[in-house]
């Protein structure tokens, strides 16, 4: 079991090294014909050359060394992850395994993994999305001269994410957490010829790193408090630790979560991160890495529940993030930025779910979101590829030329909005229902993995075959129930209402921007100058394959009580979605050639720039740091070093005073000598 989980991590890891070092060599071995590389690569190259290359790559992916090295180990890893998930579902409970114990002189680090329900399902999701992205990239990046390193970094990223998921030790988790960050940096900056991409990559890394400082400190606080970094031990000893420590640790962890999951106020890197190639946005900045923050909250839910006030803060941040970024998404003109802001908004929905105590629902939304957002990004990639532009204003009328992409994207957008019966509806409804319950009744529904219905003493009941995902989650909950029982404390009334209303508002806004995106891309007249056609098959198939889970995944949740749709909340949400979507449609219908966002008027620039948060940070953080840097250099040179050099100068001046008599005239020296003799003689005569 644990061996399989560790293989799941090690396979992509080994693939990354192999791809980095041997990829191109393997290509040469398999395909002696030389393909001339084009600088820049990707959609930026000329259309015709790219098209030919994509078709070649599509026809002969088996001769593409880096692609083979990337996809085969990952496929194998996905199989292993599936086996792990299946085993955990058949007989629930956490499996742990320890490779070794590293003595640090204080709290030891346990290099070990933990495979339980949560890890198994998220791990499987990660493997599947990563595999889809790798396959898609074969065609998308066919002509890129650096495809080899690109694929290798995706492999490394996947390994890191799986390490986060399966890790049984907080520090091991942190290792994966940071390696993901650096892979994200390299992949955003993949087309580094353009300075803008390079800047976006640096920004993404630094902003998340700022949050990670808090994360690391939180881990250290927990580890020292519990005298162990093992996640199970930490959760088991929460009650023995001082309350203040747990609260502080929870707030510190929250900083890391906000950074990684792009929540307010550390969200600014995500829209810029869209500078990376589109498959990267799909994998890292939509489905997996940004979800890691939510995953960690769920993993350490006990810490957040125990620390007082943490969930309230999480809820408030989530509301700000979800409403703000949904508004910003309304005004964007770049299709990827729309999706990026939508990602922030959806992650905030998960965070809101966690805040109101609906952790199962939040993870369920994480899974469905992983599927439909990856789908949306990959489909957007196909559209960008065909039209050669990121801008919504250049699309239009793509419905007929790109039927597969159109239908897939329709499914994805429906899931995003939360229309029945696609997956997003189930998961979002579960979150809204929980929030509604918290707002109306004041305390969270008895649900979640740790607070499931009472378990008979005899042990967990055998799960039934029909409950796959939800079943696994629930089984996990039951297996763990005997250890700890976390009940999320009720949010304060105002916070619960805020979360609930925020969620409802977000539903309406989501519908509005989704409908705007859908209409402007696929309907109306063609506005840009391009030849409409379907993307290469390797890409469309991948997108279509992702549409299947995006459509039907919701039914898997039916096995768990709290994940079944509720009529009341579902109707309210649907009505609001209809309102938002309808408004967008009416505006568009008035003049299909123009952007419905025009009605925002003077507010639009504010929304488009994301409420000028970037500018604020530049003013408050970046510029003072730079000023401080200049100050330090000046102080170093004029203060500290000047003191050192000044000491040398003082010594020289002192010496200068003493060497004044040494003027080179021997007669002066002799005079001194003689005077000295006379003085000595006089002293001897007088005193002796």
């Amino acid at each position, binding site marked *: 079991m644990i061996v399989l989980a560790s293989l799941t991590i090690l396979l992509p890891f080994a693939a990354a090294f192999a791809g980095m070092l041997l990829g191109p060599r393997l290509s040469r071995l398999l395909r002696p014909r030389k393909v001339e590389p084009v600088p820049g690569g990707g959609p930026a190259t000329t259309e015709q050359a790219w098209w030919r290359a994509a078709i070649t790559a599509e026809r002969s992916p088996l001769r593409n060394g880096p692609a083979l090295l990337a996809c085969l180990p990952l496929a194998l890893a996905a199989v292993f992850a599936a086996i792990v998930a299946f085993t955990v579902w058949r007989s629930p409970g956490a499996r742990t395994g320890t490779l070794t114990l590293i003595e640090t*002189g204080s709290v030891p680090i346990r290099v070990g993994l933990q495979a339980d329900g949560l890890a198994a399902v998220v791990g499987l999701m990660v493997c599947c999305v990563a595999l889809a992205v790798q396959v898609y990239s074969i065609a998308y990046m066919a002509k890129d001269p650096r495809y080899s390193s690109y694929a290798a970094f995706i492999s490394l990223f996947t390994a890191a994410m799986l390490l986060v998921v399966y890790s049984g030790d907080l520090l091991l988790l942190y*290792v994966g957490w940071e390696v993901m960050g*650096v892979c994200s940096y390299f992949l955003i*900056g993949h087309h580094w010829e353009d300075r803008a991409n390079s800047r976006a990559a640096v920004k993404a890394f630094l902003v998340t*790193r700022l949050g990670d400082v808090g994360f690391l400190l939180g881990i250290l606080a927990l580890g020292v408090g519990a005298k162990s970094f093992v996640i199970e031990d930490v959760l088991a000893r929460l009650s023995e630790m001082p309350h203040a420590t747990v609260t502080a640790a929870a707030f510190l962890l929250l900083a890391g979560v906000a950074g990684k999951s792009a929540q307010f106020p550390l969200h600014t890197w995500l829209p810029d991160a869209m500078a990376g190639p589109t498959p990267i946005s799909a994998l890292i900045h939509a489905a997996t890495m940004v979800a890691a923050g939510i995953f960690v909250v769920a993993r350490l839910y006990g810490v957040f529940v125990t620390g007082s006030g943490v969930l309230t803060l999480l809820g408030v941040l989530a509301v700000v993030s979800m409403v703000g970024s949904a508004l910003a998404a309304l005004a964007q003109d770049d299709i990827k930025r729309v999706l990026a802001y939508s990602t922030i908004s959806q992650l905030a929905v998960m965070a809101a779910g966690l805040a109101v105590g609906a952790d199962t629902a939040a993870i369920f939304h994480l899974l469905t979101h992983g599927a439909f957002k990856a789908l949306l990004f990959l489909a957007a990639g196909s559209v960008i590829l065909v039209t050669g532009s990121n801008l919504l204003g250049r699309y239009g009328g793509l419905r007929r030329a790109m039927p597969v992409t159109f239908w897939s994207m329709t499914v994805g957008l429906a899931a995003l909005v939360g229309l029945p019966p696609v997956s997003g509806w189930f998961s979002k409804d579960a979150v809204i229902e929980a929030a509604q319950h918290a707002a109306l009744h004041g305390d969270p529904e008895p649900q979640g993995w740790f607070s499931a219905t009472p378990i008979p003493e005899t042990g967990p009941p055998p799960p039934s075959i029909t409950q796959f995902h939800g079943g696994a989650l629930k089984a996990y909950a039951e297996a763990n129930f005997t250890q700890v029982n976390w009940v999320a404390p009720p949010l304060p009334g105002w916070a619960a209402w805020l979360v609930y209303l925020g969620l409802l508002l977000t539903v309406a806004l989501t519908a509005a921007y989704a409908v705007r995106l859908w209409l402007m891309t696929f309907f109306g007249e063609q506005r840009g100058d391009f030849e409409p056609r379907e993307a290469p098959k390797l890409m469309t198939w991948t997108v279509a394959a992702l549409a299947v889970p995006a459509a039907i995944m919701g039914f898997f949740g039916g096995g768990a009580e709290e994940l079944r749709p509720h009529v009341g909340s579902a109707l309210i949400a649907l009505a609001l979605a209809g309102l938002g979507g309808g408004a967008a449609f009416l505006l568009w219908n008035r003049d299909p050639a123009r952007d419905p966002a025009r009605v925002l008027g003077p507010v639009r620039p504010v929304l488009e720039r994301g409420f000028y948060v970037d500018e604020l940070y530049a003013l408050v953080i970046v510029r003072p*740091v730079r000023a401080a840097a200049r100050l330090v*250099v000046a102080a170093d040179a004029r203060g500290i070093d000047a003191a*050192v050099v000044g000491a040398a100068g003082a010594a020289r001046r002192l010496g200068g005073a003493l060497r004044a008599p040494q003027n080179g005239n021997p007669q002066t020296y002799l005079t001194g000598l003689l005077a000295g003799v006379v003085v000595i003689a006089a002293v001897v005569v007088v005193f002796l």
Partner: protein
Amino acid sequence: MIFLLLTAIPLLAALALLVPAGRFLPGDAAVARFGVAVSGATLLVALSAVTAFDFGAPERMQLEIDRAWAPAIGLRFHLGADGVSLPLILLTALLTFLCFLYTAKHPPAGDRVRLFTALLLVLEVGLLGTFVALDLVLFFVFFEVVLIPMYAVIAIWGGAGRRAAAYKFILYTLLGSGLLLAGMLLVGVNAGTLDMTELAARHGSGLTHGVQVTAFVLMGLGFAVKAPMWPLHTWLPDAHTAAPTVGSVLLAGVLLKMGTYGLVRVALPLAPDGAAFWAPWLGLFAVIGIVWGSLACLAQTDLKRMIAYSSVGHMGFVLLGIATLTPVGVNAALFGNIAHGLITGLLFFLAGAVKDRYGTGDLRELGGGMLTSAPRLASILTFASVASLGLPGLAGFWGEMLALLGAYKPHADLPRTTFVVFMAVGALGAVLTAAYFLRMLARITHGPVPDARLTAGPVAAVSRYEYAAWIPLVVLTLLVGLWPKTLLDVTTAPVRALLGGG
């Protein structure tokens, strides 16, 4: 016996180079090969010391040699190693070997390879001797032997401003050495012995509080100059910037470690009361150093100077670890030493290679697009930078993380709140570290190649000798980062012993 051999081989080789060129090894190439062979032999001896070392009891002094040296004043010729010094011995032997390997194909500007080789060999004697000496005066002798060759290397083969930098280096460190000697003699005279193992075993018993406080501040200042600790760091950027590539590598890779090693080996166990008295100050200066170094790096425009200032920040983490006076903190310091030696050594090699190829180390003049013009060089530079900014899974992370862990729960006698503040500030300094390395990478490796460079013709590819010098460092960085147990297992037990079983 093995350590006598370790120091004797380079010493005898250096003496052999005094024979006039006509009689022995005519020609620079022969001398360069000789250097490689001698340092290779030294590395082999170091490796055999590792195999002879009993890893079951790393806290015990092993492979000792203990002879009377000057019985009249109680000096002994006492060499030996335990888990604290063994990794550093290996690092020194390895880095010196790699430096000779690099020099064989890339001699420093200014020729005189014979003199250069001889000086580096003498340097190696001093460095290795410092890490194996177990008598205070012997330690001091080796500590000082290092200075003159390094001074000469900077002053003769250095870049612009080399003489001023060399003077500053030698005068500053000599000043520190004077204080160090005074502190050591104070301890030696009061305790009645100069044997480090015996003094360490006493844990300061027999010394009054006042003597310990004075001795620690004297020795601490001596080592802090070498480390270097803020605000005694200003010799370092000048020396690094002016020194030739190989000089910078050894300076950053090994010389700085003598300071922190001395703190751990000499100052801490000999005067524990003094250490407890001064630890908050040491921690304060360490944390200021972390932030100061990082901010200074953000505003640098010269590649070598930036890497030099980054050393100030990294050694700040090492000093912070020592200041906590906990096993985990001292472990962090030792780990940080090794990691910094590997990574910064590599960075200086790369900076030298960049300067060789582009003729400048100025970030603005370099322009951008190094990933286009010299992809392999730029990739290794990226790797080294990422390692240096403390990415988990590479060597740089563990030292920093353990230092923070130590600071979160320092020794029971130290003010905890103060150290928690130090920890938070130090952790923020780590973000700044990331900022300046990424800024540097974005500046020179990303972006389009400037037109002036395009017309200047292709950049020389990475040569086989350069690979030979760099790849061991890359591999070790990965190995130590992915499997920190290799190092921590060796150091934990002796560190506990040094701190009095704590």
